[in-house]
């Protein structure tokens, strides 16, 4: 059989097709698992926020309301797809697809545990940043195509917000890149494991803080959820969307949260590894599979998202911009300078 293929197609075709097949399998696994996580992230959020607000949260659909996300999905799928009469239809159709696709594409470079990554490319971090910026196009196009002033304002706000905070996020990660010496996410995790503290969050505390704050803004979450400030702009850029198109924005947003939490985990919290000083102290912990640590860290960060959401009021638009440009970016720049100095000094000492 093998011989047969090799003779009629090309030498090495079987290996190549196996390679493609494995990648496809990985893609399916990652997308399905990620979407399931997104579905349950909404459930998790509703439960956590309900507990903080003297409520119970979903509990009717399935045991403990666990099937609520699916019920919501089915409901949204069967809703009428309303398109405003004056909407710019092609752009209106395209916007949620761009938003959702760019969020899903980011998943391809995330290593969930040692060796498991769809595309182990050497510019993983840059790819992630590029994809999250692409999402801004979806938002802007949605705001523009809806032919609604509220959606338009929401889209404009979002565009300027994401562009501003993109810079802060990018700069805050430069420190990590300097320390790890690589843009590949797997290499960054391994570099952290070899570092004495086990995670970059400790030496890069400044970058970590900037990243966490900017990630809230990047994913449009409170206290920076201005593009969809419910009390001002009704629902922001997706005011005019309904049915499954709305669901795509919704899913894209939660995937975005998952991705931001994953980046924070991979770049600052050591990804699927735990610091060596802990395993030296409690050796049995090293038998726990890496995916458990990874998910535990991601979910802790997701919990922080919800925690912040149920605690803080919302910033005003100009204040948001001031924080981005006057606080976060200078802090991130200072972090780069510090990291660079320490790195070159330590090299000089050696």
């Amino acid at each position, binding site marked *: 059989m093998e011989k047969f293929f090799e003779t009629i197609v090309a030498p090495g075709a079987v290996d190549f097709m196996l390679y493609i097949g494995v990648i496809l399998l990985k893609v399916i696994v990652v997308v399905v698992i990620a979407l399931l996580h997104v579905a349950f992230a909404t459930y998790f959020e509703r439960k956590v*926020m309900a507990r*903080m*607000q*003297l*409520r119970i949260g979903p509990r009717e659909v399935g045991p403990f309301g666990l099937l609520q996300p699916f019920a919501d999905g089915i409901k949204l799928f069967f809703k009428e797809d309303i398109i405003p009469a004056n909407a710019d239809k092609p752009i209106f159709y395209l916007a949620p697809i761009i938003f959702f696709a760019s969020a899903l594409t980011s998943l391809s470079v995330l290593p969930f545990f040692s060796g498991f990554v769809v595309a182990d490319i050497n510019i993983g971090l840059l790819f992630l940043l590029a994809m999250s910026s692409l999402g801004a196009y979806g938002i802007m196009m949605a705001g523009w195509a809806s032919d609604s*002033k*509220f959606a338009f*304002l929401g889209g404009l706000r979002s565009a300027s917000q994401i562009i501003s905070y993109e810079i802060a996020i990018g700069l805050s990660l430069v420190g990590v890149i300097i320390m790890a010496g690589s843009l590949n996410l797997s290499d960054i995790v391994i570099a952290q494991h070899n570092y004495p503290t086990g995670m970059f969050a400790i030496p890069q505390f400044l970058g970590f803080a900037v990243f966490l704050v900017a990630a809230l803004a990047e994913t449009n979450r*409170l*206290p920076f*959820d*201005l593009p969809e*400030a*419910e*009390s*001002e*702009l*009704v629902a922001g850029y997706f005011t005019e969307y309904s049915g499954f198109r709305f669901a795509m924005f919704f899913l894209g947003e939660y995937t975005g949260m998952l991705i931001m939490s994953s980046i924070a985990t991979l770049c600052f919290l050591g990804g699927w590894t735990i610091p060596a000083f802990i395993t030296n102290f409690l050796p049995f912990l090293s038998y726990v599979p890496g995916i458990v640590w990874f998910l535990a860290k991601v979910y802790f960060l997701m919990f922080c998202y919800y925690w912040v*959401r*149920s*605690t*803080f*009021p*919302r*910033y*005003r*638009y*100009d*204040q948001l911009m001031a924080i981005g440009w006057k606080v976060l970016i200078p802090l991130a720049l200072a972090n780069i300078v510090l990291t660079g100095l320490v790195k070159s000094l330590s090299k000089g000492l050696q």
Partner: protein
Amino acid sequence: MEHIEDIEKPFRTQELTISMGPQHPATHGVLRLVLNLSGENVVKCTPYVGYLHRGIEKLGENRTYFSALPLSDRLDYIASMNNNVGYVNAVEKLFGIEVPERAKFIRTMVAEMGRISSHIVWLGTHILDIGATTPFLHSMAQRERLLDLFEILCGARLTVSYPRIGGVRNDVSQEFLDKLYEFVLEFPSNMDNYETLVTENRIWKHRTVGIGVISAEEAINWGLTGGTLRGSGVDYDVRKYAPYDAYDKVEFDIPVGKNGDCYDRYLVRVGELRQANRIIKQCIENLPAGPIMSDVPKLTLPPKDMVMKDMEHLIHQFILITKGPSVPEGEVYMGTEAPKGELGFYFVSDGTGKPYRMRVRAPSFVHASVLPRLCEGGLVADVIANIGTIDIVLGECDR
């Protein structure tokens, strides 16, 4: 440095006109604001009211003084008890009758309950508008307890119609007093909880300090009253300046702000919540014994059990209900301190059982008129903060 507005632009710009409302999550009812925006800046703000107009003033002219009382419930539907108290006080002033001491204390007590339930809704929604969701649900849980208490008191939760001309409808039960006292004792610690989340919060301060500033002089000229005026530093409170009911017999302070911005108005109302709690506590502790209705046969209905047994009482009841009370001719204005501000009832009587003219001085109407003054020159997000801070209810504004 050249100012950004002075730079000549090679293109034409146009203001963006947005109609905010009448169906909008943050306009607290059916208020419609037409905003002219230049980017995020509000150039012009025009409030449109009247979407909830039900003709309450006109309806009042076609009903006897007794049967117009439930109309006042529908003014400020969040604090109907205070409207009732305002209404009956005005009618009593017209009739010139004195209310028994116990009824006065009960009225003061329930009016302050109404104030707490109104302010607590304001607190929750104002904070919700600015973006924090949790205090809203926590404060609503407290309001629920107050509504349950109203239910024990008179059977209704929102449109209570509990006070009567000459007193109150029924006496308070011991169960009600016990539960209310329990609420009063727990309330300060609950207030601490809300304040921990908000008062010293940096974001909250960023959003409210220096926003919607109005000076004391201007506030008076605009006719502002209540917490909206006191936030500017004027200690005008009808309960102190022209005490009605039992307000001259209880101790309370008037919280006053300084800068006249959203934050000071917030602090004033939070202070009022604590003071209202203090008044309720004193009312429960000093509640005198005695009758709950004044004995003025020409104006007050006879006791129900006597109506069923006695011919004269039956005729008396029938005449009062059908013809209305016999009233002296004249005009009367009576202002009371409702949670939103000074709620005034103005009656012109022509001697019949129905008012010739019933006019309501609604604080929400006056406060809605100051919105352009507060909003213009600010940002869109400040409009939301300003709507929240003036604490308007459109039922009262449109009447």
